């Protein structure tokens, strides 16, 4: 299906979707919980600064840390694989599964596997995939992509979830009890866990000095999979690295607080080596990250620890919904990453922001998110990758506004016609008045008043 541009997709969510307020309600709830949790921490702002420094340091020495990480991981008995892109990652996973004649996998939440389309790939090879994160299971059962990176089913109401479960798991129709629904999904997945031959997970942090990985979940589903299945496969983007174990003390304190307002995720698990008699695989994935790292204006967005706080706080995200971005990572940070990976496809996303700056202010690793969005706009315009309906008024506007005489002349008309820039006039007025009245134009401009009343008076 062809991807809709953000304004159209958001318009659909707002005016035609079944529950257009769901993302706002859930998002603002998380943002408010975050505010309470971060205010408990002494020196929270210093912690953010520290996190940013560690990430910047790691990213600017990434080659070195990746080598150290690989060396330590190999010494721990982990099988390490490298994947230059998503296709290669998917092939690695499938090859390992094939070798062990695995009939299906249990998979915990991983935005990287979403990014690389792992589920679709495996299913095409005839392999079944069970997403085990409750939210991700819900979107999997309703054949949708996640609408949020931490809360994949954020756009769903309880009624909708109850209906999906009734349809797919034969739960009681109309039962809206959250506990009942959660337990039903758990029971259904429990037997998959027990018989699973392989578990796939994402990775929150890779620690270079120890060659270990850290996975944070609230449901313990990653642990259930990994500790039961004889084959464990961890897919990790190369930017997830941190140098030392003690750095975790900075990030673990920031992650859950920023994400959901919890002090810490329910499970924070560290995996170092395979259990006796089982295999542990780690796939290190580039998929555009190296190229992104080479972009002087945008590399800092790779500091992201995927907490989702910028989505929760973003009023554009909450209004238009996560699906309106049409990319695996939605919201403000997704709008920087997506064009870094595919400039032509996602050139609308940097414009899907009012540049209010709330994202940059909540980000636990201090990415200048709205600054980078603004920078992307400049790059896109410089590549002439912008529709005429935007560029003509801007060029006209500039011409008028850099010539005082012309400005005064057109200003008079503008007040009459209320088309600020002549070419833009009609269209802009139409879009404006969809839900708003136009300002009532005054008789005279400030300048005209000034000339009459002030100029030449003592």
């Amino acid at each position, binding site marked *: 299906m062809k991807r809709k541009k953000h304004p159209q997709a958001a318009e659909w969510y707002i005016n035609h979707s079944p529950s257009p307020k769901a993302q706002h309600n859930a998002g603002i709830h998380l943002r408010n919980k975050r505010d309470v949790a971060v205010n408990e921490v002494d020196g929270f702002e210093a912690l953010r600064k520290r996190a940013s420094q560690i990430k910047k340091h790691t990213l600017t020495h990434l080659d070195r840390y990746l080598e150290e990480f690989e060396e330590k991981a190999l010494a721990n008995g982990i099988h390490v694989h490298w994947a230059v892109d998503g296709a290669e990652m998917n092939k690695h996973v499938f090859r390992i599964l094939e070798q062990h004649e695995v009939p299906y996998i249990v998979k915990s939440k991983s935005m990287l596997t979403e990014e690389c389309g792992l589920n679709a790939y495996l299913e095409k090879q005839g392999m079944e995939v069970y997403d085990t994160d409750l939210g991700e299971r819900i979107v999997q059962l309703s054949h949708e992509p996640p609408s949020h990176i931490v809360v994949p089913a954020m756009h769903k109401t309880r009624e909708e979830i109850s209906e999906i479960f009734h349809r797919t798991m034969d739960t009681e129709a109309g039962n809206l009890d959250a506990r009942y629904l959660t337990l039903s999904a758990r029971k259904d997945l429990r037997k998959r866990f027990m018989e699973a031959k392989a578990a796939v997970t994402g990775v929150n942090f890779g620690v270079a000095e120890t060659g270990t990985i850290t996975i944070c979940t609230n449901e313990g589903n990653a642990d259930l999979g990994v500790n039961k299945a004889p084959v464990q496969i961890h897919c990790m983007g190369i930017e997830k690295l941190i140098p030392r174990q003690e750095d975790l003390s900075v990030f673990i304190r920031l992650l859950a607080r920023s994400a959901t307002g919890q002090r810490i995720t329910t499970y924070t698990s560290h995996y170092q080596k395979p259990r006796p008699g089982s295999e542990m695989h780690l796939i290190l994935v580039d998929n555009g990250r190296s190229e992104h790292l080479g972009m002087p204006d945008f590399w800092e967005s790779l500091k992201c620890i995927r907490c989702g706080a910028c989505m929760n706080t973003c009023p554009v995200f909450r209004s238009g919904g996560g699906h309106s971005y049409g990319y695996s990572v939605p919201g403000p940070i997704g709008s920087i990453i997506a064009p870094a990976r595919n400039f032509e496809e996602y050139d609308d996303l940097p414009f899907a922001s*009012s*540049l*209010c700056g*709330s994202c940059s202010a909540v980000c636990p690793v201090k990415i200048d998110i709205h600054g980078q969005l603004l920078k992307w706009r400049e790059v896109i315009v*410089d590549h002439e990758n912008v529709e005429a309906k935007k560029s003509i008024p801007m060029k006209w506007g*500039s011409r008028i506004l850099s010539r005082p005489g012309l400005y005064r002349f057109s200003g008079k008309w503008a007040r009459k016609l209320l088309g600020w820039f002549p070419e833009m006039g009609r269209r802009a007025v139409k879009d404006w008045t969809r839900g*708003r*009245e*136009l300002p009532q134009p*005054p008789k005279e401009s400030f300048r005209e008043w000034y000339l009459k009343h002030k100029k030449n008076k003592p």
Partner: protein
Amino acid sequence: MKIGLFVPCYIDQFFPSVGKSTLTILENLGYDVGYPLDQTCCGQPMVNSGFVKEGNRVTQNFRKAFEGYDVVVGPSGSCVHHLLDHAHVGHDPGDPKVHELFSFLYEQQNFPPRLKSFPHNVGLHYSCHALRGLNIASPSEIVEPYFSKIQPILDLIPDMKIVPLDNADECCGFGGTFSVFESAVSIDMGQRRVDDHLKHEARYIISMDSSCLMHMEGIARKRGDKVEFLHLADLVANLWP
């Protein structure tokens, strides 16, 4: 100190009273104020849409118009934030120091001696650029002791009640050309913002940016909401004894 009065283009054309009020406040506080007649705009509408070269041309005109002034003061957090942080006016030798009106009064610690009473419920809309761009007050995201540079002025107004809001400093959704190119989102955000004020029974919504007010007022008028919109400069000038 000779102050150059900066009246941004949309205020000049659509909200002249805000320009007049700014002039009144500055003159009443004893400043010598000049208004350069060749000023137009700060260049923000272009730059925010990615048209940096075009925007810079407009900023060049700004620089030329205010040549010879050491200090420029204007009643818009948004335009001033653009001039300082994006156009970097103030970096070159010979550039004036540009201020948003209320940040300027705060820096000068120069406030009206007293103001008349305003016995109404007022919702305060901190524009995002004044708040997070110019640091006119502490934004809700940041963990720091609360401060607000407009508090001293608000405290001078007897009987005015500032209503609490559910989301104290959420964006209203104007965002310049965003308001038309993402009109569905912009309108939804604006309705939510106005609703928060209405829910807490604000009779007036006050801001230091006319652009946010124009957007929210447009929404409120379309729906027939009973609430009025005022620039803080207009409020203060009207309450001058």
